[in-house]
């Protein structure tokens, strides 16, 4: 056992970080939220060129995967830079498309970045139908119901999310039946893992930006960050994120349902806590839409309930532990 990121993982993260830092992702995210997708698509192509989507696609369909650890490493960076678009949904679609016909037809374009996918995941508890993220931007719209996996023919309008960079759509009923028994539970694990990693990245960005802010913002003649009340809240934020990180990476290694659910719950709680702390420590400027912090603040809230609320994930942890497990 050697529970430590390999040098290749760290180099991969560093190269994504450098590319995204240079790419003005905040500006791209703002345009995306207005329904202007050109820069977002260009960024998407570069992320695909770096190999990110190929990590979710099997080699048989022109991918490199599935490689959950690499995927988790990548999604932390995508979250740190507030990259917009149906990122989680695209890798989830790759996990859903397992029938050879549809897989051969749709997966190579997902791996290469030529197309992006979204997924509406209707489980038994859905009352009014699930939203598909960025249904207007996606080329491949998948609808998962207990009856199977369909390629939706379109979508019904776009609703805003409380995260301005996320746009929600309901997929039209009907469409081509791709599979009667898609690997929905396995795909849900991919979705939860990618969301957890993205949330961890969002939380890390919130903490990083807040630490920088309280280091330069002064009140009463000293930096706000020298007050113990502020320091302790930021220390707790760091601790929550640093203990979510090994859960995310560990879940990527095992892909056990309880591990993935634990990672999702704790990364999303940590990121949400980071958002609350970031807003409080920034004061009123953090409450403005103009200031870039808002991109991460609202995303932390949205990711918290995407692909399983913290309580649903906790229930999954307990359910998996109902049987004795060996450690």
């Amino acid at each position, binding site marked *: *056992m050697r529970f*430590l990121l390999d040098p290749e993982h760290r180099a991969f993260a560093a190269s994504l970080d450098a590319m995204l830092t240079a790419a003005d992702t905040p500006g791209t995210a703002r345009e995306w939220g207005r329904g202007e997708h050109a820069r977002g698509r260009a960024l998407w192509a570069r992320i695909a060129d770096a190999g990110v989507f190929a990590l979710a696609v099997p080699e048989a369909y022109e991918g490199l995967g599935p490689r959950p650890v690499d995927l988790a490493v990548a999604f932390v960076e995508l979250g740190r830079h507030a990259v917009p678009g149906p990122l989680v949904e695209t890798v989830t679609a790759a996990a859903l498309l397992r029938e050879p016909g549809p897989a051969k037809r749709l997966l190579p374009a997902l791996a290469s970045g030529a197309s992006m996918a979204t997924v509406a995941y209707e489980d038994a508890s859905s009352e009014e139908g699930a939203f598909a993220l960025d249904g207007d931007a996606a080329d491949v719209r998948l609808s998962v119901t207990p009856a199977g996996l369909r390629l939706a023919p379109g979508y019904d309008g776009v609703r805003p999310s409380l995260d301005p960079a996320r746009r929600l759509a309901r997929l039209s009923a009907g469409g081509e039946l791709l599979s009667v028994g898609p690997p929905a539970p396995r795909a849900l694990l991919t979705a939860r893992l990618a969301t957890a990693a993205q949330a961890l990245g969002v939380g890390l960005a919130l903490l990083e930006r807040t630490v920088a802010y309280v280091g330069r913002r002064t009140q009463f003649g000293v930096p706000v960050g020298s007050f*113990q009340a502020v*320091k302790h809240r930021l220390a707790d934020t760091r601790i929550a994120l640093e203990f979510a990180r090994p859960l995310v990476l560990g879940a990527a290694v095992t892909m056990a349902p309880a591990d993935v659910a634990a990672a999702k719950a704790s990364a999303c709680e940590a990121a949400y806590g980071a958002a609350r702390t970031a807003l409080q420590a920034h004061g009123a400027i953090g409450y403005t839409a103009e200031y870039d912090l808002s991109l991460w603040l609202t995303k932390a809230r949205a990711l918290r309930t995407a692909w399983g609320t913290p309580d649903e994930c906790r*229930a999954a942890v307990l359910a998996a532990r109902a049987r004795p497990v060996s450690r």
Partner: protein
Amino acid sequence: MDLTLTREEEAFREEARAWLAAHVPRTALPSLETAEGFAAHRAWEAELAADRWSVVNWPARYGGRDAGLVRWLLFEEEYWAADAPGRVGQNGIGLLAPTLLAHGTEEQRARVLPPMATGEVVWAQAWSEPEAGSDLASLRSRAVRAEGGWLLSGQKTWSSRAAFADRAFGLFRSDPTAPKPHQGLLYVMFGLRAPGVTVRPVGRLDGEPTFAELFLDEVFVPDEDVIGEPGDGWRIAMSTAADERGLTLRSPGRFLAAADRLHALWRAKGGPPETAGRVADALIGARAYQLFTYAAAARTRAGERLGPESSMNKVFWSELDIALHETALDLLGARGEAADTAWARRYVFALAGPIYAGTNEIQRDIVAERLLGLPKGRR
């Protein structure tokens, strides 16, 4: 990135599990915080040591197995899962031993470590003083040069195990003229039955008496019992403190076992939905701490030193411990109040976690200043 055990690690785990299954006492030993329990636990240390299970990560020549941190963690997981007794030798094993291995002389290691491994000599920590707790560097107990050694005088307090332990290790001010409070300190080992030592047990919140204050009146210690150079005590002690908070004080096995017990209790109560989230959080927290510690062990093995990130561990496990035991007592309802149950005893023990080994406020300051780079300010 790998969580599969090697064949050797798997074999080690199996060997530990089998040994524990054959040796762990069927009925719990009396509390190690009493004279009777202390003796019983000392005998348990000897039993562990006889088959070299008391200090698996130490070098073999001092009674260990050269097992390394990962196998130590596996042993600890098996140890606590087997509900084996608490470790009366822990202060010495977890704090003094790493210090001696890093800073002691070979003569000191050969003399001190083997009887520590067998429980023949049990050690108490003598760091805190009435005016020096969180502000440890302000301590005032003195060490004055004497022929062939030093004379210790002053008062130490909150010394865990000191009521029944044999020897203690601690810091004393050897150079009162040093310009800064953390300079001019001596790190020294001394006997708790030596002439000039008075031990006064202090009842703790749980009523147990092994906690003690120590009064020292010109207690002689020979030079051979000084660790490192006189004046260098602070640096030596702090390197041990990082180890204490970082890895060796509370292994994840303890929390994994406790979370499993909590989950079993919850299920036995019919799985009440209102506590489900808290039970899940205990399982998640224990898993997080396990994986965090595996990562720390891997970093240590790769040659990195555990620095201020150790402070994150200490805050995390101490709060996890309290939350987990609070949930158990709440599940037990009014019966949870009864003080003679294992859950109640462990709850009261957990309450001390955020206080000892450096309060959590101090740990948060360390995280904020040394990991996040925030400016120092008034405490």
